[in-house]
């Protein structure tokens, strides 16, 4: 059987079924992702460690599973936070926490285990503390090395395009 069908020979039903299968795969992947977001309470339930600031515990390319709930942030927890105006989340440990009586708001200072100084220079402007709304989630689980592919794809986009190209080719030319 020819692997490449000519235009005049295109059979409608098998093609539609193929497209539907593809749609199902994409939908299930999205459902799992969104479901994870609901269960863990975080916008991004899985993050990749980008820097060596938490070595030797977490190395570049490891992935962290996050969880977020209403429990107040306490010292020692490894949190992922976004600085106002910056897009890249930072994974560091809380070394100071001050919880106000009246508002329940918590002032947090973080530091990477492998850094000499705390994160004050990373916070935007003259900001001295992080608050709960900066925190995306707490790290509760960890897998080594798995995230390295994401780092490669971000830093060398050619790999991403190559991968998508090969996958698309496989999907189109497969018979089943």
């Amino acid at each position, binding site marked *: 059987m020819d692997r490449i069908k000519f235009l005049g020979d295109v059979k409608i039903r098998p093609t539609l079924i193929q497209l539907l299968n593809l749609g199902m795969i994409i939908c299930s992947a999205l459902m799992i992702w969104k479901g994870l977001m609901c269960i863990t309470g975080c916008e991004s339930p899985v993050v990749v460690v980008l820097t060596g600031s938490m070595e*030797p515990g977490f190395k570049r390319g490891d992935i962290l599973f996050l969880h977020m709930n209403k429990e107040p942030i306490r010292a020692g927890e490894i949190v992922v936070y976004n600085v106002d105006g910056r897009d890249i989340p930072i994974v560091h440990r809380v070394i100071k926490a001050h919880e*106000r009586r009246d508002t329940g708001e918590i002032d947090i200072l973080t530091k990477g285990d492998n850094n000499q100084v705390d994160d004050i220079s990373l916070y935007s402007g003259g900001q001295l503390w992080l608050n709960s709304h900066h925190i995306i989630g707490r790290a509760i689980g960890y897998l080594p090395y798995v995230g390295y592919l994401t780092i490669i794809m971000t830093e060398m986009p050619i790999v991403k395009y190559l991968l998508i190209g090969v996958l698309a080719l496989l999907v189109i030319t497969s018979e089943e």
Partner: protein
Amino acid sequence: MHSFGYRANAVLTFGVTMLALMCFLASLSDTFTVPTTSAEVKILNINWFQKQANGNDEVSLTLNVSADLSTLFTWNTKQVFVFVAAEYETPQNALNQVSLWDGIIPSKEHAKFWIHTTNKYRFVDQGSNLKGKDFNLTLHWHIMPKTGKMFADKIVMTGYRLPEEYR
């Protein structure tokens, strides 16, 4: 059905699934350990106790921390992050936690340790509430596994008090 592509796909899928299952089981085995740990923190000296220019109290201490955390180490433990935090409350804040010292224990052999040190991080209050303050020193530990779930626990030691006057 028997082409290289299909076989490679099958092997890879099976391999990845097995790897994920092993990581999960390794993490599960951690939940069965029942650790017995002990710790003691002594304040050897209050080096100085001042009010800073910005109005916040700051104190410098020399501590002696001794602990035995060897039962925390399992075959799935990469390292244990341990830190000592001063915990106290003030009229303005329901809880203050200030980390004074932290360290990394890379293996079971180093888990029974004794250290004599000044506070690694500055013990600064939000405000001027530390005169005569009673506080706890809590030894926290965070177990960082080779794969899987991270566990944390602590030992609270009470009965510490800062001096009534600056010095």
